[in-house]
Structure formats: structure tokens, C-alpha cells
């Protein structure tokens, strides 16, 4: 098992380096000079040059061939990319160009908001998706099956930004039951321990804060949960249907075991593998793909933040945020791989 884990780590590493490379390249290729973006159109040439020097933007992208021709080996490797990698190894993501605060600090504040939102969505998706899939599979080709499968397909086809808008329209504008955006109402304060407001308010016994937090997170979480819910329900159904055809299910039934026992003890356990995979994949996508939901509900998470940074040419934020998302995504996939090998020994020995 340890050998397998080690192998997986080795195979993730080149991907990770490739990811830093792409992230670095992309942000430098986007048109627009960050020095001008910082100082405005009317800045003098000298001040622009000074800022470029400060940010290291005057260095070549990858390697400095002129320094090498002059015999300066250290200068040869002193490039924007190498400096970026050196800073990364110290966990320094640089400062935001516009706001001049370290990216890492804002990340620490914003990332928990995204984690909280996606975790809650994932919980909703799993709690509804898996039972729907099981019921569909066990009542194959009945009306219940058709309805829940068309329902989950509608979930998969849902433009979540539209669903979010419709939710706001109904619950915030027309009925005025729930607030339309943000994480907490103004005036409500919750002591931050984990930075996940739901958990913090529970730990500190702040019921008023908890209710307020729930009322804020409900709409975005439901909107974000629709697509994974549909995907999980469909996956559970098809995986259950595959397993229900197996011989051991027939044997269990022939032994006279009750339908429910066979369904949960024998079928569900064996059908869990692909479902676990898809949940892992969806968790990674959710964490990352909350851009639209966060935009609509003005949720102070990283998706919205990166989107603004792309439009504002704030390179360090884009690089730091995207890198974090890619790492989380790769990390989740890695965990799913390990879990898979734990659950199915055949994979380890391949």
C-alpha cells in the first residue's frame, strides 16, 4: 500500500510542476501591463520602470540568455519564473497589485468561505442524490424511476446562475424570506475559530449567529448542489443496476434474505466504488467552480475573487488562487485514488 501511495505521489509531481508553469505563463500572456494597471495611465516612464523593477517584471520570463553570454550563471537562472518558484517554496504568494496586501492573508479569509459553501452543497447533494439513486435502481422502469431520473437530468442540465437568480427572485425579492447575498447580516458578529461561520457559531453557542448564517448560506448551497446531486443520483442508479445483476445478489435472494437487506448490505456496498469516485471528482469541481454562484450571491469566496482579479489584471491573486484550486483538485483526486485502492485491493497489485 505504501508503495502504491508513493507511486501515486511520484506521478502527481510532474503534473503539479506543469500546473505552476501553465499558471505562470497564462497570467503573463494576458495583455496589459500590471505596472500601468497599478499606477494608472498617466504615470511617468521612470515610475513605471521603478515598479517593474520592484515587481521583477523587468526580468526575462524563464531564462536570461544575455546574462549567460556574459558569463553570469546566477543571472541566467534569475528569471520571473524562478523567482516565482522560489517564493512558492517559502509559501509566499506575493502581494495583491491593487490592494498591496499579501495574497496569502486574503486567501486565508476567503478560502474557508468557499470550503463552507461547497461542503454544505456536497452534503446536500449526497443526502438527496444517493437515496434517489437507490430507490430508482430498486424500482427500475417504474414511474418513480422515470420521474427521479428525468428530475436528476434536469438537475444536471441546470444553469446554476439562472437557478440562483430565480431563488433570489422568489425568496428574497417577492417573498422576502431570505437575504439575497453575503455571508452574514451586518451587525452580527461571530468569533472566528475555524473561519467556517456555521461551525464557529455552534462552538461559541451563538444561536442568533447560526440562524443568520444558515439563512445566508441556504440559497447558494442549494443552487450549487443541483448539478452534483443529479450526477450522484444517476451514478448511484447505474452502479446499483450493474451490481444487482451479479450472481451473489441472486444467491443472497435465493437464500431468502429480505429485499432491504440485500439492497443495503450486499448491493450498496459493492456499488459504492464508482459513487465514491464521482463524489470526489465533484467535490474538487465544486470547490473550484463556485465562481458563478459566488458572483450571484456576493459570497466572499475565492471563485469570485479570482474572477475579479482576472479582469483587474491582478496577477498574484490569479496565480495564487488558481494554484490553490488546482492543488486542492489534484489532492482530492489523489485521495480518491488512495481510497479506491483501499476499497478494492485489485488496483494496488496491478
Amino acid at each position, binding site marked *: 500500500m505504501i508503495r502504491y501511495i508513493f507511486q501515486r505521489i511520484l506521478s502527481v509531481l*510532474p*503534473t503539479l510542476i*506543469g*500546473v505552476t508553469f*501553465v499558471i505562470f505563463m*497564462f497570467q503573463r*500572456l*494576458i*495583455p496589459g501591463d500590471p505596472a500601468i494597471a497599478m499606477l494608472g495611465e498617466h504615470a511617468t516612464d521612470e515610475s513605471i520602470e521603478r515598479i517593474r523593477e520592484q515587481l521583477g517584471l523587468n526580468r526575462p520570463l524563464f*531564462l536570461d*540568455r544575455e546574462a*549567460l*553570454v*556574459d*558569463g*553570469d*550563471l546566477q543571472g*541566467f537562472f534569475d528569471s520571473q519564473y524562478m523567482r516565482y518558484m522560489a517564493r512558492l517554496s517559502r509559501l509566499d504568494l506575493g502581494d495583491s497589485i491593487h490592494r498591496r496586501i499579501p495574497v496569502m492573508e486574503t486567501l486565508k479569509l476567503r478560502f474557508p468561505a468557499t470550503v463552507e459553501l461547497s461542503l454544505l452543497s456536497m452534503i446536500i447533494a449526497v443526502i438527496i442524490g444517493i437515496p434517489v439513486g437507490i430507490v430508482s435502481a430498486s424500482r427500475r422502469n417504474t414511474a418513480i424511476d*422515470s420521474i427521479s*431520473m*428525468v428530475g436528476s*437530468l*434536469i438537475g*444536471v*442540465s*441546470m*444553469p446554476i*446562475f*439562472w*437557478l440562483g*437568480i*430565480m431563488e*433570489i*427572485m422568489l425568496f428574497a*425579492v*417577492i417573498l422576502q424570506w431570505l437575504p439575497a447575498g453575503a455571508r452574514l447580516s451586518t451587525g452580527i458578529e461571530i468569533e472566528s475559530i475555524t473561519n467556517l461561520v456555521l461551525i464557529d457559531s455552534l462552538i461559541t453557542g451563538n444561536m442568533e449567529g447560526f440562524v443568520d448564517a444558515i439563512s445566508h448560506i441556504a440559497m447558494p448551497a442549494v443552487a450549487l448542489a443541483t448539478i452534483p446531486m443529479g450526477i450522484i443520483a444517476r451514478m448511484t442508479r447505474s452502479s446499483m443496476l450493474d451490481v444487482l445483476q451479479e450472481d451473489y445478489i441472486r444467491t443472497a435472494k435465493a437464500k431468502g434474505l429480505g429485499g432491504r437487506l440485500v439492497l443495503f448490505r450486499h448491493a450498496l456496498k459493492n456499488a459504492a466504488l464508482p459513487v465514491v469516485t464521482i463524489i470526489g471528482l465533484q467535490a*474538487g*469541481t465544486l470547490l*473550484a*467552480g463556485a*465562481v*458563478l454562484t459566488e*458572483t*450571484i450571491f456576493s459570497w466572499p469566496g475565492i*471563485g469570485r475573487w*479570482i*474572477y475579479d482579479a*482576472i*479582469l483587474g489584471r491582478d496577477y498574484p491573486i*490569479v496565480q495564487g488562487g*488558481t494554484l490553490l*484550486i*488546482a492543488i486542492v*483538485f*489534484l489532492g482530492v*483526486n489523489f485521495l480518491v485514488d488512495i481510497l479506491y485502492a483501499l476499497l478494492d485491493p485489485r488496483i494496488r497489485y496491478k
Partner: protein
Amino acid sequence: MVKITPEEITVTDFAVREHRSLWGDAWKRLLSSNTARLGMFIVVLFVSSATFSHYFWKYEPKKDLDYSLKLKAPIFIPTEEIPSVHPFGTDKLGRDIFRRVVHGGWNSLRVGIVAVGISLFFGGTIGLLSGFYETVTMTTTERLVLFGTAGFLMGSLSAWIADQYFQLILYAGLGLAAGYYQDLFKGKFLRMVTFGILGALFSAVPGLFISPTVAVICGLWGLLSGVLLSRPLDGKFFSNVMMRLMDIVLSFPGYLLAIAIVAFLGPGLGKGMIAIGVVGIPIYARLTRSVVLAIIHKEYILAAQSVGESHGRIIFRHITPNILSPIIVQTTMGLASAILSAAALGFLGLGAIPPEPEWGAMLGESYRYLTSGAWWAVMFPGLAIMLSVLGFNLLGDGLRDALDPKLRT
């Protein structure tokens, strides 16, 4: 007692059963499914209304403006106040939303089709070649192409450092030599040493004319390249490199990557198509590779190989037709997700440029005056997105069931 006359009995001759082709069978099965029929109906409805309106129902978005009809709720019977029919209501500029939704379909569907076309073409090619050469041994010519390209690519770094572009030819030549003399010192350490030294010399000697440090760095790079080229590179190597590249693209969340690409290219419908298309490439590459790997050991491929058919012919005549069904299913589903992504880009203001009608962009505009209570302005464009995506998904689901050979009796 019931009497049966011989005329009433129809005899089925089992021996001369009517000929049924794979596709004919699949078509019949597709038609027999309720959900697939619903999907097909939705798809045909959207495609034909968009195409028809584009050619026969002229609409000029730049001139469409009428403040007297601003934000009217859906109206079916003309009144004195509002003399025209607006089944979906009007938006903030007094434009008929029904008209814009129908015309917007042309843009949204077009983005979907072109984007999927891009992903399918590049992803399919990469997947097909990776899957094929991962198992089938390369011919000499193919190996030479692989080695030559590898040498050329590695040489580009050294050539750039030394600013001597003839080094590209030297490196490519080294690659070709390594590919051609595969048996030279085969499996021995000497092979690595020979090509390593050759590479170092090819790079360091020209580098000396620039400066000693350049010579050292280029020499080291040449040594590394030579050692790599001395290895028995094959299709597996190519496939590994390609799949790692796809992994890198896949490790970025789709939306974010598309947004970044559009930010790089600038907003617009065409740029959106490219962005969504690029993001989709790895999905098709992985799928194609896996289906190729699933059929490559089949007897008919072996037979084609043993009668000496060329690799190109095997790929086009034997492999491509046999991997079509999963690809068709994925393409249909891919159209759904491409339309969804296009709408998302439009919603974020990165797709179609206003006043061009596009579903996502329409939602993005009406989202700003949400508090005015004009539910129809956000309801109908979104409903159009959802229905068209649902249509393609239903059709894709139906196609998967129809094309699944396990169900064939």
C-alpha cells in the same frame, strides 16, 4: 369454439429474417424510448427555430429599442396601450424577449457546436494516436518522425540560448540517428554514453563561439537530450507525454480556465468558442484513448495488421468506425455542457457583446434589474438554456442506451 382459418395465421420465416444494420437497429431503439423522443423533439425544436429565424425572420439588435414598451409583463392580446403581442414580455430597453430568445438560440447553439467541434477534433486525434501507438509497434518511418520531433523540440532550448538556430537541425539529426540506429549497442550502457557525448558535442562546440558559459550550459543540455534520445522511445512514451499534458489541463477547473482564456483573447462569441473548445479537449482525448485501447486487441485489428494494411488505413477504416458510438454519445452530452458553459461566459459578460442576443448575456443584463420584479426578463432566457441543455442530455442518454451493444438481441 373459436375457429381459426389458415389465412389468419402469419408465418414468420426465421431463416430469412429481415436484414438489420447496427445503425438501423439503434435508430429503432432510440425511437422506442420516450425520454429519447422527448430529447429529440426539444433538440429539433431549438435547432430549427434558431436556424429558421436566423434566415427568414430578420432581426437587427442594434436598432431594436422602444422605451415606451419598457419592462412589460407577458401579453398575448394586443391592447390600446400595448399594440403588439409579447408572449415573453419586454426587457428594460422595450425589446421583445421572445424574439431575442429565439434569435439568441442561433448564437448559443453555434457556440456549442463549434466548441465541441474543436474539442472533438483535437481531443479525438490525440486520443486516437495515443491509444493506437500505445499498443501497436511503430514502423521505422513513424519512429523517425517521433525521434526527429523529440530532438527538434529539445534542441529549441539550446538553439535559443546560443542564438544559433542551426542547432535545431543538429538536434533533429541526432534524434533521427538515434531512431534509425535502434540496434546500435542495444541495451548497453555504451549506447547512452555515445548519444550523450554526441549531444553534448553538437551543442557545446557551436556554443563555444558565443561564450564559455553558454558552451557549458548547452553542453549539459545536449548531454541530457542525448541520453533521453538513446532510450528506446516508442508510442508508449508519446502516449504518456500526451496524457500528462491532458492531466495538466484537466487539473484546472473548467470555468476558470475558460474565463482565463477569454481574458487572454478578449471577449466575444468567437473567443468564447475557442475557450470552451480548448477546455474540452482532454475529455475527448481520454475517452477516445480508452475506447481505442478497448478494441485494439480485437481479432479484426489483428487480421488487418497481419495482411499488412498500413497504420493509417487501420486507424481510419477499422478503428474509427468501431469507436464511433461512445464518441457520438459524448459529443451529444458535450454539446449540452458546451451550451451551458457558453451561457455562463455570456452571463459573466465574457461571451457575446451586447446588444447581440445570447441567452447567457440576456440573463446577465436582466440580472441587474432583478429588484424591479420583472421575473419574465430572467425567466425565459434561463428556461431556454435549461431546456436546450436538457434536450441534448436526454438525447445523449437515449443514444447511449440505443448504441449499447450489450442490449442488442
